[in-house]
């Protein structure tokens, strides 16, 4: 049972104002996004259209605390097919950002490592202007283990044994990943980051 | 059910309303929907014009089957002709039932757009009547 008067009707506006969220209202619930989603095939509960419907209704808490919010692989199939140009992957990113802000403010506990991963990812970009796999992994695992570098390294090694090794063997990860490589004008990159973050 | 009699080609007389079943038969034709060549259609303006005597007459003449096609109830071109027809046909078939002839008479509501239904009914009727065998009145001197 959903009681609309207990919901946050402003949630829609919050999303609309978040970059990527502007097309939320165009959705007419046709189900295209959900049907074609490769993630939904693995995680049956994952249903982008429901997330949209709940967002429109103002079910802020349910949407933001929904663990499915974090599993989108951003393959963009939904975005490409959406008849109403809702741009679902951008939209979900916008919602995730709202969740992160809430988490930062201590209002919400995110049960996903994805923010950590994304943060680490951006850090590498900021530092080197391109991705440094090892650096990403080290930062991510450190964050995952509560900021402890040691624990993080151990956890990383543990995962590496099966997962990392497989990647290594398939050539997805090479010796190059061990050492950072910088682009020429890292100061330009910095400027971009500063601009986006409004520093 | 009895098996169809060998080599027996029934003669079916079809009384059809000009506005619906006759047009439905036309549609079966234009859409090349084939059906057994047993029916000879007589066009009436309305199933309401069907005098049950026509049916009695052809049955006594030896027709193996009689088909009556009218508009769906409520869709009569003349408002209620088919309602009257329905009563007449029901009465007639009740009479024929006493002599085992009712199964040779079939009435259906077939609209102008139901060419397929027409063809289907013709097919079913030909099969049913083949199973019944020839009208016992065939070739009798009456």
């Amino acid at each position, binding site marked *: 049972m959903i009681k609309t008067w207990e919901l946050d009707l402003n949630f829609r506006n919050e999303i609309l104002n978040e970059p990527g969220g502007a097309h939320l209202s165009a959705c007419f619930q046709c189900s295209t996004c959900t049907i074609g989603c490769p993630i939904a095939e693995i995680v049956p509960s994952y249903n982008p259209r429901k997330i949209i419907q709940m967002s429109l209704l103002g079910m802020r808490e349910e949407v933001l605390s929904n663990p499915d919010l974090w599993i989108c692989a951003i393959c963009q199939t939904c975005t490409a097919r959406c008849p109403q140009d809702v741009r679902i992957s951008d939209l979900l990113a916008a919602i995730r950002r709202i969740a992160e802000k809430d988490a930062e403010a201590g209002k919400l506990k995110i049960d996903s490592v994805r923010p950590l991963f994304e943060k680490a990812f951006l850090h590498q970009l900021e530092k080197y202007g391109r991705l440094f796999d090892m650096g990403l992994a080290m930062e991510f695992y450190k964050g995952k283990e509560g900021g402890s570098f040691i624990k993080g390294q151990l956890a990383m090694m543990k995962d590496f044994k099966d997962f990392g090794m497989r990647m290594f063997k398939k050539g997805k990860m090479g010796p190059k990943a061990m050492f950072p490589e910088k682009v020429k004008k890292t100061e330009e990159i910095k400027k971009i980051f500063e601009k986006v973050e409004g520093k | 059910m009895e098996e169809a009699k060998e080599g027996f080609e029934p003669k079916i007389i079809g009384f059809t309303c000009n506005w619906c079943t006759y047009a439905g038969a036309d549609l079966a034709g234009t859409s090349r929907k084939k059906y057994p060549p047993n029916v000879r259609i007589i066009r009436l303006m309305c199933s309401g014009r069907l005098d049950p005597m026509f049916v*009695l007459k052809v049955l006594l003449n030896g027709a193996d089957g009689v088909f009556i096609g009218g508009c769906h*109830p409520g869709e009569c071109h003349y408002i209620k002709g088919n*309602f009257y027809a329905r009563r007449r046909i029901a*009465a007639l*078939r*009740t009479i024929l039932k006493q*002599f085992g002839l009712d199964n040779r008479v079939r009435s259906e509501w077939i609209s102008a757009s139901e060419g397929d239904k027409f063809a289907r009914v013709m097919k079913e009727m030909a099969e049913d009547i083949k199973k019944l065998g020839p009208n*016992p009145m065939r070739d009798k001197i*009456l």
Partner: protein
Amino acid sequence: MKGTELKQEDLEGLFKRLLEKKAVDCLVLPHKVGNNVAYMLVKDGDKIESPAASAIFAPSFGVNAANIVKGWTIPERVGIVAKPCEIRAAIELMKLKQMDKDSVLLISADCSGAFTNQDYADHAGEIGDWVDSGKINELKDKGIAIREACAICENRLADVGDIIIERVDGGKVLVAGITDMGVEALSSTELSLEDKDVERQAEKEKIAADAKKEKEELPKLSSVEELEEFLRDCIGCKNCRDMCPVCYCKECFFEQPLGKPVGGDLLNLAELRSAIGVPTNQLLYHLTRIYHVCTTCVGCGACEDACPKNIPLTRLYPMIAEKVQEIFEYEPGKDVEEPLPFITYEEEELEEHLR
């Protein structure tokens, strides 16, 4: 239901007063002709024979009284005293405008079942003026049976028309008006009327049950070949039609060129079909006639009586008509206001009877 009890011998007085008080201008009334019963048309009440009751209740069937007054669309008011089946036929004729309901006063009298004119004339003494079921069986054993039409008749007791005459124990009759017109006519004779229960449900049910049993025992036709055999002796005289009270056409289809081809037309047909039976259309005639009377047939059996070749037509006409009336839930002759089945319809009905 307003009525009064009279002695049987008071009936002639009642009829006389109906004439005198101008409740009717004339009366069609059964009377005795020698050993038999026939109808007379009375203008002068003094000519009414006494005892009237013996003719009225006599189990004899000559013609259907409705057939006598068929086509009488006259302004004068005619009263008809007859058996229930005859009154029913009259009511059907009213629906068919072959009589005007305002100018005919229908008086039905109880019937016990009747014998043919011939049988009654031959055995009048033995049969008497009234037969009860015991007597019917007794006579049957002696080979004197009531007409088949009567044996299967479920509606022998008077309950239709404007006035009914019921037999009551003790040589009495109950006369009651069951329509406004009937009550008015009775009142005009200065009888003191009171509310009367005229239903006799139990008695009716018993008669109906017996009749049903008789009906079941009758041989039935089940194929068109059997019908052919059944009608083998038919000479095409069409007496069955002429004596049928509800056959009302001014000129029968089977008297017209299409129904009764002669000469060249007949030859043409013969050429077309290589050979034809003559007189032609025998089967078509009977089947068509069944259809034509199937809703209005009251089962009086006049057709059978009329057949010179003694074809038991009761087994054909009323038996089949009854089936048709069943599907329309129609009871002919019950109510003059009830429309004939063929001129009315329900938007959803009868689909199961079409294929």
